[in-house]
Each structure stands twice: as structure tokens, then as C-alpha cells.
């Protein structure tokens, strides 16, 4: 299945195991390694292309020459130990890092061919083409209804029929409609944590984004709410291109089509989820996804 030039199953080759742990050691020592990108990733059409992207916080480099295409209409999971730059990468996609004064970048990202970091790119227009859900639910201090249609409101949409329709569709999409349909006018701050997070997802999909960015959407939720959000991601699969950061390997293996393993700001291995979890090319990827390291 994998068309990677590397040996099909590294577990059968003790020599490659030795060189595999070396890679992380090389990275930890500040060296550069070639990422293992499976051929199948390259073959799917990409909604978002990240091309030799580097990012510095002041003098500290947080992303090292990341090159990865994000396949169109699929769910792509970003995994890796804490502090490896997953959130940074996600926030670079919709240029939220512009708000951090010390950030400097080189390299390129393209959304459906449009250069994201181009001088002529309007950041506001760019962000309208993406939806983002954060680690902690961050509903706005307004009614449930207004939260969902926020993106339309700031675009100046005021036709009640349009707003109503979008509100219902998004809430249904986020599997929240039945729980809140009778209290749309109430403050969103009165919802439970899980409901708030699904509300944030509804808000993110209201404007029909080209890419949906989810940064550990379940980390602040209890198992039941997590289950609901996971089901939701399953349903979004195929409808949206999703880039999701997660620490939960089961979540990644269950709900994503592709998985990328990052370490200390580098991309280490990137391939179809089934391959990454059952027969990764690199030993250290296997060690990480099976929980033996990280």
C-alpha cells in the first residue's frame, strides 16, 4: 500500500531502528533531517500547501522548514509531544501569529493556490476562508444565535432569513441544534463546556470555510463531550478539509485520514493514518504513536 521507498516494515529491520532513534537525537542536537512523507499524501489534491515554512519567536525558532500538503476534503491529524509547534503551525495557517509582535517567518503557504503570506493577501479575507476552534471553548459574550452567525454579521449580513438558515444548519452540523433550539436568544456563556465547544465548531463552520483548523478541540472536555465532538468530526469528514491537533492517539487513529508526526518544530513522518499507526516507516513514529515515548 505504501509507496514509500523506505523498507515496508521497519520493525523487521533492527538496523533501521538504530538509525531511527538517531533521527530524534539529531533533531534534539539542532540538526536537520529529511521528513518521511509517504507517497500517497503527495498524490491527493491539496487544499493547503505548506512549503519550507520556518517560524521564529524572537530568536527562538519554533518551526523548521515544514513542507507538507494538506489533502482536500480529508481529516489530517497533527500529533507530537507538547511544545513541538503544532499550535504554532495551525496558527500560522490563518495568520493568527501576526498578532504576536516578535514572530518572523520565511517560506510559503498556499490556500487553494493563493499565497497566504503574500503582500497582497488581505488577512481578514483570508481568515474568512477558514474556521478555527481552540483548545479551550471561547464563546463570545453574546447570545447563542449571535455566536453562530458572528462571521456573517461582521460581513454585514442582516437578512433574518439567511441568518436563521445558517444558524440552524451550523448548529445541526455541530450536533447542538436539538439541545439549544429553544434557547437561541440566551447567553452562550450559560452553556456547559462541551456545548460551548460544539458551539465554537458551529461558529467555525457557519461561513463554510475551505479549511477547518481544530487545535485540541477535546482537551478541555469530559469523555462524553469528547465522544460527541469526535462523532462530529466523523460527520465533517468529506464535507470539509480538516486540520486537527490532538494528543489523543485513539482520536487521531479513529477520526483522521492522514497523520503527521512532529518533533521539536520538525515534521518527522507524514502519511495515511492507517499506515502511520500500523506500519510506520520510522521506528520513533511507532514509539510515539504506541505511547512508548513522548
Amino acid at each position, binding site marked *: 500500500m505504501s509507496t514509500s521507498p523506505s523498507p515496508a516494515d521497519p520493525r523487521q529491520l533492527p538496523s533501521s531502528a538504530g538509525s531511527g532513534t538517531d533521527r530524534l537525537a539529531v533533531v534534539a542536537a539542532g540538526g536537520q533531517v529529511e521528513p518521511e512523507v509517504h507517497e500517497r499524501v503527495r498524490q491527493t489534491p491539496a487544499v493547503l500547501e505548506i512549503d519550507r515554512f520556518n517560524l521564529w519567536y524572537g530568536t527562538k525558532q519554533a518551526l523548521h522548514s515544514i513542507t507538507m500538503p494538506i489533502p482536500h476534503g480529508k481529516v489530517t491529524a497533527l500529533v507530537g509531544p507538547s511544545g513541538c509547534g503544532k499550535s504554532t503551525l495551525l496558527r500560522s495557517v490563518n495568520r493568527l501569529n501576526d498578532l504576536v509582535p516578535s514572530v518572523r517567518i520565511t517560506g510559503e503557504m498556499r490556500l487553494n493556490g493563493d499565497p497566504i503570506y503574500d503582500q497582497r493577501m488581505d488577512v481578514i479575507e483570508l481568515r474568512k476562508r477558514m474556521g478555527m476552534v*481552540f483548545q479551550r471553548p471561547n464563546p463570545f459574550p453574546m447570545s447563542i444565535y449571535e455566536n453562530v452567525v458572528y462571521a456573517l454579521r461582521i460581513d454585514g449580513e442582516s437578512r433574518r432569513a439567511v441568518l436563521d438558515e445558517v444558524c440552524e444548519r451550523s448548529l445541526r452540523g455541530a450536533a447542538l441544534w436539538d439541545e439549544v433550539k429553544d434557547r437561541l436568544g440566551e447567553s452562550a456563556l450559560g452553556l456547559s463546556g462541551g456545548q460551548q465547544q460544539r458551539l465554537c465548531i458551529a461558529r467555525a463552520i457557519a461561513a463554510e470555510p475551505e479549511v477547518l483548523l481544530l487545535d485540541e478541540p477535546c482537551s478541555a472536555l469530559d469523555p462524553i463531550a469528547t465522544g460527541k465532538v469526535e462523532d462530529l468530526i466523523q460527520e465533517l469528514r468529506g464535507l470539509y478539509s480538516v486540520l486537527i491537533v490532538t494528543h489523543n492517539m485513539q482520536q487521531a487513529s479513529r477520526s483522521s485520514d492522514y497523520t503527521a508526526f512532529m518533533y521539536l518544530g520538525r515534521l518527522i513522518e507524514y502519511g495515511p493514518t492507517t499506515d502511520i499507526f500500523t506500519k510506520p516507516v520510522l521506528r520513533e513514529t511507532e514509539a510515539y504513536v504506541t505511547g512508548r515515548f513522548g
Partner: protein
Amino acid sequence: MSSDPLRRRRSTHAALAAHGEAWVWLTGGCLALAMAMIIGVLGYIVSEGVATFWPRPIELIELTDGRKVLGEETGRDTAPDGTGRRLVRTANFELTGKHFEWFDDGEVTATTRPAEATVVERLEGGRFQGFPTRLLHGDEVVATGGEEAWRGFREKHPDVRRRWREAWRIDKGDRGELQRKLRAARLAVVQAELSAGADSPAGAAAAAAEKAVAAEVEAQERRLDERTAELRAGNEGWGLEFTTAPGESVVLPLADIVRAWQPNKLSFAERLGVYASRWGEFLGDDPREANSAGGVFPAIWGTIAMTLIMALLVAPFGVLAALYLREYASRGPMTAAVRIAINNLAGVPSIVYGAFGLGFFCYVLGGSIDELLFRPALVADGQPTFGTGGLLWASLTLALLTLPVVIVATEEALSAVPNSMREGSYACGASKWQTIRRIVLPRALPGIMTGLILAMARGAGEVAPLMLVGVKKLALDLPIDGTFPFVHPEREFMHLAYLIYDVGFQSPNSQAAKPMVFTITFLLVAIIALLNVAAIWIRGRLRRRYVSQQF
């Protein structure tokens, strides 16, 4: 046997610090002390302020030298040698030259509370105390004998009082209205002369119009004169004759009597009636007798109008300034310097703000406005319109004074808005201003309200700067009233806090004014509390709406 090396030794000091008992006592003690002082001050003000209008009994005091005095005991103290003495409000200033008198206990031979002893509040001259003997109408004696005369007085007085009120209303309201009309016509003439020249057709037309207005005003004046003369004639001659304690006989015109009561005879309900009526006068009428009696209505009105206008001015100003400082300005030495400057503004003595307000707002700004828009008034009678103290300038001065409070509170509130909300908004494609408008400001609103509440409390209680920029001892024309254009921001006004100073320390009869000072203070505190309660209620609603977070 050696002790376990892993076991750490704990000092008693550490244990005490860990359990924190000492801190509980210290913090709790400080709070208790603060509360005791606050409750002490407020309790004293309230108890004194509330008691002022309660009709207290008056006593007939007989002295060793044979003198008799009728008066209300208002205070008592003990001399170092142990003898007591009392302060008695003897009133009848025109007869004795005193309002109050001290008597040693040794001098007093007897005190009684005669039922017919009467207290009279007059329009002028302070209180009068005596025994009614006859009700007179011109040369005619309508009723003789204490009880009869008192009954007759109770019957006649309301009518007299009503007529007096109507005449007063005509003098103050209607005549003032006519004068204003006349002045407006006069100013139109000056305006026409200024813009088109004295001999121009416009000037001639204005002059003709003025003549017409003058004729009409004169006709109306005559009608008013007739009416007031008629009213006064109705009151003419009505008088109540009193005998004072020493035995002098005095006739008080009924029209001069505001209110009279026989405190020793009153039932509790009647006492309550007098109490309520005196509060009614206090809250609803104009002041009398150099502000030491009567009402404080213009001052209540002025205080509330000024405080609200101040809040309306300072709120947008302070919030916008804080918004720029917190949301737009880049962090650096400049913003730090600005912030320090703002904090220091809060320490500038308020009289300095008053001087600035007078110099800049009244003379520079107001003077320019007068030059530009109110030239006729300047030319006609040299009278400044905006170029002197007034409600607008006072409100602006206080807005400046309270600006630091609002800016600091707003900045705090803005920085308390979670960054995650801002990022969420940006991620939706909102611009900076949209984020501020729709997310940051609503969320910060309760905190901004807190700043505004503090500012209002501070501003409403300020006296020193107000004396320079428009508060007057007496200003009966309200800054907001029924005459076009309804709001008169240029008018001078009265203010409760200034009234406290004026009545308490500038009054010719300070002993008599003392209870009044307490009542005014009580009223001011109550008004500020009321404004605050309203603001806190609004804040609570906002907080429920925008801030409460449920987990």
C-alpha cells in the same frame, strides 16, 4: 536512636504562617475597623439628618432672675466643675438679638411644657416662639383667646398661603418669562444692527418688532400687577397676635408665616404630619433665609443634572482614551509615560482643576463661543453667556477631574478580557475594530461601569472646583426647565455639596443652620447612593449577560 533524616523539621513559625490564622485576624480586623468608621460616619449623618425636621417639644424656662424664656432644648453639656448647662433655641431674634442661649442648670428654677406654646416658621427673621392670643383682620378682631385664635389661624392660613404662593409664582415665573421675551427682542435689535447696520431695513424691522413686544409685555405686566395686587389685598391685614414668654405682644402677618405648630400638644400622627410637610418643603421648594431654611430643590436638581452630564461626558472620553492606550498604542516608553501621567492627574488638587476650568473652559472656550454666537448679548449689556461659570463648564471640569478614574478602570477592564475571545473573533475574520466593538467592549462593560460609579461618587461630592466654575449660593433658575430650549447649559446652578459648605460655614446663623447641614449631607449621600445603586444594578445585569461563565 537517631531521627529519620528524611523527616523535615518544622518550626512553629512556619506552622502559624501555613495555617494563616494571623492573617485572617489581621485582614478581618482591618475590614472591621474600616466598617466601624464608615458606619460611624454614615450613622451619625443619618441620625442627625433624619431628626432635623421632627417637631420637638418646647419648654417654658423660668430663671432665678425672674426671666421667662420659651425655647427648644437643642444641646447639653457639662462644665469642668460638674455643673450642667443647656443650649436653648430661644428664637425671636428681632426681640432678643439672639437665636440661641446657654443656661446653667443653677439658673433654672422651673421648666414646664405649656400646651399652647407655638413655633412659627417665617419667611424672614428665623423662628418665632410664643403664645397665640388673637386673630386679627385689619382693625377687626376675628378671634380672641389662645384656643380660638389658634383654630381661626388654622382655618385661614391655608388660603392666605395659597394666595401667597400664586403671587410668588407669578413674580418668579411669569414675570421672568416676560423679561426674557423682552431681552430676546432687544438682542434681536442689536443683532440686526451688528450685521446690517442701524439704519438698515432689517434693523428697522427688528426695532419695530421690539416695540411691539415691549407694548405686549407691558400690557401683560399690567395684568400680572393687577392679579398680584388682588392676591396681596386678600392677604392684607390678616395677622396673628402672640404674647412672648416675657410678656411682649407681637403681631405676625399671616402671609409671612410658612408653618406653625404647637409641639407640646401634637399627637404622634400630627407630629408625623408636620415632619412630612417639612420634608416636603425641604425637597420641593426654593431656599429661604440665606439657604438656612426652606428647601433645596434647585440644589438637588443641579447636583443630579451636573453628575449625569459629567458621567455622559467622561464615559465616552475616558473609554475611548483607554481603548487607544490598551488596544492600539504599541507598548513602549511613550505609553508608559502617558499612563504615569494619567495616574498622576488623579493626585492633582481639585481646586487646580477648578482654576483650569475657569481659565480655559469659561474664559477661553466660553469667551470664544460668546464672541462667535452670542455677540449681541455682549454688546447689549456686556453680559457673558457661556463666558462665565455654568452647568456645562462645571460638568466638563469634573469630567476632567474624574477622567483618570475612568481611564484606569477601563484599562483594567479591557486587559481582563480573555485573549482567547479576541483570537476567536480574529479567527472568524473580524477586523480589530469589529473585535473591539462586538467582543471586547461588551465584555469589559461591567468593569467600565465600576469606573463610572467611582467617578460619579467622586464628582458628586466635589466642592472646591465647583465654586470657580458655576455653582452659586443662590440660583433659582433651573438649568433644565420648561422654557425653550429646555436645557440651559450656560446657567449657573446650585449644588448640595456647595450648600453644605455655604450653610455650614458661611451662614450668619450657623447654630440654627447646623441641623440643616446634616440634612443636606444626608440628602447628598442618599442621592449618590441612589445613583450608585442604579449603576450597580445596571452593572449586575451586564455582568450576567456578558461575563458569567459556567463550567
